[in-house]
């Protein structure tokens, strides 16, 4: 996965992501692609969750999956989740759950609840940072005011880091793949450097949904695991998602 929150010169915030999934879950030799992503793509749907006929939040989901990996509360905040690898992982949380220790929350139920119930960027950040979980994760959160954008690095039980936009110091975007931002990514899976190179080449002056789509279409940010790309404009309240393909030659991850 690659998620980013960027602020343009006018203080407008954009949030976008590639949803990559299905590593090592079966390779389709005939089509030269992973199997699971090809079955996930036609399940991709945009959802408008409503109460009293009014939008509470919107999301991009796989049909049948009730949690949220990509979502937005229009005019308030946007949220995506990227996987975080850790030896203290979700399987420990599942074993604890089965053994009756139920204080943790399932990752995608947490994101769904935050989108459903949080009323501000700050409240969302607090809930995502401080709720005990069954599995580690990265939460990428964007708000609707200048400077409201961060990557929250979570272990199962604690918030390890919150990496915020900082325009005074030239940090006009935050970008997360699947590795702690203060560490070098795995040398065989560095999508961060190419993505940041393209962000820097685009510059803050020219950042827009269109140029972000270009960046998320650049290999290896786009790869064989990419199922969809989502572009979110919180002030306009729009979320647009597109199923993706990565024609050969293309990185398997």
């Amino acid at each position, binding site marked *: 996965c690659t998620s980013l929150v960027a602020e343009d010169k006018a203080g407008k915030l954009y949030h976008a992501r590639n949803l990559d999934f299905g590593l090592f*879950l*079966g390779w389709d030799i005939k089509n030269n692609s992973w*199997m*699971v992503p090809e*079955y*996930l*793509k036609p*399940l*991709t*749907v*945009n*959802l*408008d*969750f*409503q*109460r*009293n006929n009014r939008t*509470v939040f919107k999301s991009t989901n796989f*049909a*049948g*999956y*009730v*949690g949220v990996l990509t979502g937005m509360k229009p005019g308030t905040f946007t949220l995506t989740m990227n*996987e975080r*690898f850790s030896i203290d*992982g*979700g*399987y420990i*949380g*599942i074993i604890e759950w*089965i053994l009756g220790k*139920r204080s943790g929350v*399932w*990752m*995608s*139920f947490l994101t769904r609840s935050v989108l*459903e119930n949080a009323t501000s960027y700050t409240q969302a950040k607090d809930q995502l940072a401080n709720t005990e979980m*069954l*599995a580690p994760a990265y939460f990428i959160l964007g708000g609707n005011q200048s400077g409201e954008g961060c990557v929250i690095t979570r272990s199962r039980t604690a918030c390890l880091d919150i990496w915020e936009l900082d325009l005074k110091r030239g940090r006009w975007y935050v970008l997360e793949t699947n590795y702690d931002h203060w560490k070098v990514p795995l*040398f*065989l*899976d*560095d*999508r961060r450097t*190419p993505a940041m*190179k*393209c962000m820097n080449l685009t510059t803050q002056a020219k950042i827009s949904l269109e140029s972000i789509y*270009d960046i998320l*279409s*650049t*290999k*290896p940010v*786009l790869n064989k695991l990419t199922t969809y790309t989502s572009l979110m404009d919180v002030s306009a309240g729009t979320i647009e998602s*597109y*199923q*993706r*393909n*990565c*024609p050969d030659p*293309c990185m398997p991850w």
Partner: protein
Amino acid sequence: SAQFVPPYTEDCRKGMYPPTGPTFKGSVPWYKINLDSAPRKRWNQLINDKKVELTNLIQVIKDLAIDFFPSGKLIELVDKGLAPLVDTLPSPFDEELKGIADVSGVPLGEIMLFNIFYEVFTV
């Protein structure tokens, strides 16, 4: 690193939007989910439309499981072991998963697996 060896890394793309061409597979349809309706019913329309694709996804994961565990024990474990766990989930997720299993015809344990796959995948 190995990843920077062309052609796996390309120059920053331009003019990709609006999405067209070989990297664009298709647009994504919209659905409304009415949170005022019962959790067990609110996903019915969507799942009715997508139950073939959902069944196909679950089948490909089951085929993978059979590759690793030909005896079928793993699938049996999912169907028998995970289904009861749905009742341990907080509301409204427990009822929503049951509604999806009802309409799709996919066993409840397998719908549960799909919805907690993030935690399971870490294995």
